[in-house]
């Protein structure tokens, strides 16, 4: 492999070669930075590229690798969604209101990755405050899909998905509140996992909807996602919601064996409105699972049609509270004004984009006097029904398999003037957040335009090993030949 193609390696392969000293982290990082320089003008996956500090991290990783002190991600170049606080590096959340914010601290997962010797090549683009399904809501412009530059990368973590798909880095961090890892992974043809709620610390991750937000990785293979998740997961005293359960060695769970695995197929996820190419591809994947020894079980998740309505009340209510902190006083944008109230109102008017305003307004309304019971409380009760649907399903099956999204990547601008239609693109991912479950997205085919199609594998709480094993078994059985985007 030419040194200019090292950026195409998986984390697992690069790890082996780094440890054997066949390649250096400096060469690997240089290959990623060269790729970034070559494709970014067309792709725009990054808000900030951090070239010099990345090369310093790589040199330090090479020293550790030489000394035989090399944790899993030592020397591996990663992209970081611009929602993670990174000491000394601008952290904008793709918002004008934070365009000049340079945090004085690291998010817990950033500190963990730093301690392992990972290399950060840049901060990736996203929908402003993670609100969106296409990365078109970024204050810095959209990220294009590497498979077709006229199409969206998905969202909100579209920059991370596109960067991994385009080999600008070996893996990346995203966040997922209603599908923000899985949908862009599906649109860009890479692997992404949203772990169980509370599996990974959110300290230093800019909050959107705190009962739904979760941290997770993007990778080029299920194995790489397993390797990354092990490094990210675990208790953190700085996040009181973070689970104290021990973290399994997820890579060891990848046995390739799915004999006897009971796969639940929910009828509510194969309904009219789904792109026939997506349905065909996911159904073919299910038949493939049968051939390699799994059993298919018809299940019902009857409250699925209510998930989007439930989500857009719960998530916006929580967002309206979380985003109250952006007041122009201690950090971020400040619009000059005569008095404090006018200062807040002008700062927020100038600093927030249209979608963020829309969600703050909706959430404030859902929580306001006279509407709380009819909207917010009702949504929290429906959330219970959605959660119970899954509890019942997991009595008869081990994992649930569905499409990630009802279609493949749509055209830039296609849904921008119709917020509700945009929200409906999250229909298959949102219930997983409402129920707090882990969900894995991986490529299962391509449509007639060569656009990637994603399959979602959902597990019971803390069943990451089961969904990663199922995903890995599919991947290594050779059912799909992955297509590298021609950029």
């Amino acid at each position: 492999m030419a040194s200019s193609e090292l950026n195409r390696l998986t984390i697992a392969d690069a790890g082996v070669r780094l440890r054997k000293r066949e390649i250096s982290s400096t060469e690997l990082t240089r290959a990623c930075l060269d790729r970034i320089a070559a494709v970014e003008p067309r792709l725009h996956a990054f808000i900030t590229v951090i070239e010099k500090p990345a090369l310093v991290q790589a040199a330090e990783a090479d020293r550790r690798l030489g000394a035989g002190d090399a944790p899993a991600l030592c020397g591996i170049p990663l992209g970081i969604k611009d929602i993670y606080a990174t000491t000394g590096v601008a952290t904008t959340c793709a918002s004008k209101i934070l365009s000049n914010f340079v945090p004085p601290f690291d998010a817990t997962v950033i500190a963990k990755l730093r301690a392992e010797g990972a290399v950060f090549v840049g901060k990736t683009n996203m929908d402003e405050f993670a609100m969106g399904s296409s990365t078109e809501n970024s204050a810095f412009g959209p990220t294009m899909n590497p498979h077709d530059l006229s199409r969206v990368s998905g969202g909100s973590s579209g920059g991370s998905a596109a960067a991994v798909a385009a080999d600008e880095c070996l893996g990346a961090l995203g966040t997922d509140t209603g599908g923000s890892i899985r949908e862009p992974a599906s649109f860009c043809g890479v692997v992404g996992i949203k772990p169980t709620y509370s599996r990974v610390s959110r300290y230093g991750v800019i909050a959107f909807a705190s009962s739904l937000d979760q941290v997770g990785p993007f990778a080029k293979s299920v194995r790489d996602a397993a390797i990354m998740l092990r490094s990210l997961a675990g208790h953190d005293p700085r996040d009181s919601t973070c689970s104290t359960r021990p973290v399994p060695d997820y890579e060891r769970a990848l046995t390739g064996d799915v004999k006897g695995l009971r796969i639940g197929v929910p009828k509510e996820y194969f309904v009219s409105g789904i792109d026939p190419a997506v349905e065909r591809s996911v159904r073919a994947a299910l038949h493939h699972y049968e051939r390699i020894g799994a059993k298919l079980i018809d299940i019902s998740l009857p409250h699925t049609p209510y998930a989007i309505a439930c989500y857009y009340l719960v998530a916006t209510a929580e967002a309206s509270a979380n985003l109250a902190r952006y007041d122009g006083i201690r950090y971020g944008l400040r619009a000059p004004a005569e008095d404090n109230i006018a200062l807040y109102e002008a700062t927020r008017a100038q600093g927030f984009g249209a979608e963020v305003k829309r969600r703050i307004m909706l959430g404030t309304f859902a929580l306001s006097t006279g509407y709380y019971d009819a909207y917010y409380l009702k949504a929290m009760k429906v959330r219970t029904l959605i959660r119970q649907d899954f509890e019942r399903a997991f009595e008869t099956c081990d994992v649930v398999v569905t499409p990630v999204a009802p279609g493949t990547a749509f055209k830039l601008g296609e849904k921008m003037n119709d917020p509700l239609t945009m929200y409906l693109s999250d229909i298959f991912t949102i219930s997983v957040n409402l129920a707090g479950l882990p969900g894995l997205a991986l490529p299962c085919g391509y449509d007639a335009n060569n656009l990637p199609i994603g399959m979602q594998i959902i597990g019971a709480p803390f069943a990451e090993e089961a969904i990663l094993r199922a995903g890995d078994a599919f991947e290594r059985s050779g059912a799909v030949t992955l297509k590298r985007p021609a950029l």
Partner: protein
Amino acid sequence: MAEKKITLEQVRHVARLARIELGPAEEEHLRADMDQILAYVDKLGELDVSTVLPTVQVGESGTPMRMDEVTNSPNAEAMLANAPARERGYFKVPKIIE
């Protein structure tokens, strides 16, 4: 067209609560968007949830306790470094009390 789910007056009230200044065109645009979204979420009304308990949090039950100890060291300069306006070690804001 069915009756409006939200009026312009309500939009102005919510904008005041949310501390967001809206222009006249933005108010009307938001009213139309919120109207459409609220009409959609009305489908929750099809469900009888009178005996269902709300889900507030899906994590594991209980809030872990810890000793009330200071774990960070004071670093005023780092905290003030992002301030839009500052003076002598303080955040500077418009006059609040006459």
